[in-house]
């Protein structure tokens, strides 16, 4: 079996990255090749380069390797369903990839079936910090000790009320988006950036046929909660990292 990526003997020794599993007719995306097993199954693989392994402790190199994995999966996704494997999945060579495919043919086929005609989307909601909290901060300089304490107490009450409201809206948003999706999952909110608090970080597996209604539900939420300083962000289509799973054997 010829291996087009095999220029360096070192690369051959290090094995192959397996980026994801695809159906049989899938063409190789740019930057990778497909190892096929029978007519129905293939694996998108790339050769491991020595400097990639050595470079794992080099931050920039690691980031590059991670982005490459994602980019290959995204290009593959444009050609059909892809079952993404965890970053860092390496096998000894093409033979081992074929063994992997053969040994798990049914599980892989079933998992790919469950992703066909569906796309993972990410939705984040952000809330601007309330202007009143900042104002209170500035005016907190003077006054009696008692006034100061009262101000602190009311400040805390406002913060708590806003947090409750945010949690309620995040909850409602996730539920509404979930209704338009086949599956959904809440991810941990990322840390605030530019003063905006992330109140929702969700992933949704949406049937391509339902995409319009998913989008409409999202826009309806954005309109409804816009006055509260809440904005929504849609990312995707993503390879189905959050919804790819194998049945137990």
């Amino acid at each position, binding site marked *: 079996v010829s291996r087009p990526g095999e220029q360096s003997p070192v690369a051959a020794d*290090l*094995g192959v990255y*397996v980026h994801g*599993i695809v159906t049989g007719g899938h063409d190789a995306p740019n930057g990778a090749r497909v190892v096929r097993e029978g007519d129905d199954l293939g694996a998108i693989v790339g050769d*491991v380069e020595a400097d990639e*392994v050595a470079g*794992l*402790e*080099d*931050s*920039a190199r*690691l*980031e590059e390797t*991670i*982005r490459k*994995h*994602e980019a290959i999966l995204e290009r593959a996704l444009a050609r059909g369903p892809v*079952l*993404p*494997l*965890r*970053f*860092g*999945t*390496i*096998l*000894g060579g093409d033979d*081992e990839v074929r*063994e*992997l495919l053969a*040994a*798990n043919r049914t599980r892989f086929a079933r*998992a790919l079936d469950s992703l066909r005609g569906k796309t993972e989307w*990410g939705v984040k909601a952000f809330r601007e910090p309330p202007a009143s909290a900042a104002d209170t901060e500035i005016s907190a300089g003077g006054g009696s000790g008692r006034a100061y304490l009262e101000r602190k107490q009311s400040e805390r009450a406002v913060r708590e009320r806003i947090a409750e409201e945010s949690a309620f809206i995040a909850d409602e948003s996730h539920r509404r988006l979930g209704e338009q999706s086949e599956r959904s999952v809440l*991810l*941990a909110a*990322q*840390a*605030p*950036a530019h003063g905006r608090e992330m109140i929702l970080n969700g992933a949704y597996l949406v049937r391509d046929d339902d995409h319009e209604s998913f*989008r*409409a539900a*999202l*826009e309806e939420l*954005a*309109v409804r909660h*816009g006055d509260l300083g809440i*904005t*929504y*962000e*849609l*990312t995707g289509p*993503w*390879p189905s*990292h*959050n919804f*790819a*799973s*194998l049945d137990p*054997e």
Partner: protein
Amino acid sequence: MSSLDRYRAVPVASPSSANLADILERVLDKGVVIAGDIAISLLDVELLTVKLRLLIASADTAQQMGINWWQSDPFLSSNAKELRQENQELRERLERIEQLLAGNSAEELSRAGNGAGEKGVTAR
């Protein structure tokens, strides 16, 4: 104006390129894990060490390995609680893999010796 047109009046932002934090929360902790039952028995010990290093190359572990670009990422650096939880999960995962490995190739490993395994065994 249909109701849908009205919704369109408030655009939902769609960033043209994904930020690194979004990619990391997907590719490092999600996706199908080919481990233990499937792949490890197929791997050379040397490859296994590479693979384990890749599998655990996540936030806190990465820091221990001296990978520090996480710290300059504003999304990730202040998310200590999430990282602690992730750390715990990774430790458990590594333990499971080690147990599987111990079961599958205890003999090989004992020959490789503690900590000297990286170059110790190349034959299969």
